């Protein structure tokens, strides 16, 4: 299972890319994914961001479905 992750704003700067595929596993939660991301990008630990799973904001317990689109969203600045 491979997860497609989109990075926005300062999180794209940290990852150095707009999106990438990470290895995932069945019944993986948002919290599990965060663990992976923090290992790969330690700088993200200090950043405030939300995670959208298929365009809905998830919390740590949200299960990531197969072939989900995940997005890392830094604080909103619209308006």
């Amino acid at each position, binding site marked *: 299972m491979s997860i497609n992750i989109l990075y*926005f*704003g300062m999180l794209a700067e940290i990852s150095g890319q707009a999106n990438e595929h990470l290895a995932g596993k069945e019944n993986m939660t948002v919290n599990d994914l965060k663990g992976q991301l923090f290992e790969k990008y330690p700088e993200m630990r200090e950043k405030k961001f939300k995670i*959208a799973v298929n*365009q809905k904001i998830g919390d740590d317990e949200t299960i990531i479905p197969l072939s989900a689109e995940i997005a890392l969203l830094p604080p909103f600045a*619209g*308006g």
Partner: protein
Amino acid sequence: MDKIHKPKKVFVPGAISPQFVADSIAKHQSKTNIGAHAIFLGQIRADEKAEGHVTGIEYSAYEEMAEQTFHEIREDAFTKFDLICMHIYHSIGLVPTGEISLFVFVSSAHRRAAFEASEYIVEQIKTKVPIFGKELVGPAGEYIWKENK
């Protein structure tokens, strides 16, 4: 058109011009059940930062989710308030200081619905729509990521 509430394109490249606002107003003059228009415009301030003045904001967005969220905000506002028309436009890309980046336009028979909806919609946009902004500061083109309060 407005009764179907089809998803509408919200993002416009660059600044929103006063002429665009005028054209939108003019299009509503044939709707003679409208008695009140409330318009909100967000304009880029030249805020003073440690690195210098803000010269503009470069907006980016998670566009698919943002357009969907704008659509939900629209539907929700039509349910909550007795509105005849509603239009939302937001800039994407660079908007220089002094230019307009947000245009929220609501119309109703009586003023109360327009006032309440205008404020509600702007607050919803600020907190719910995944739009990101780089405040460009100083002559060297440094930047700070903006965050809504």
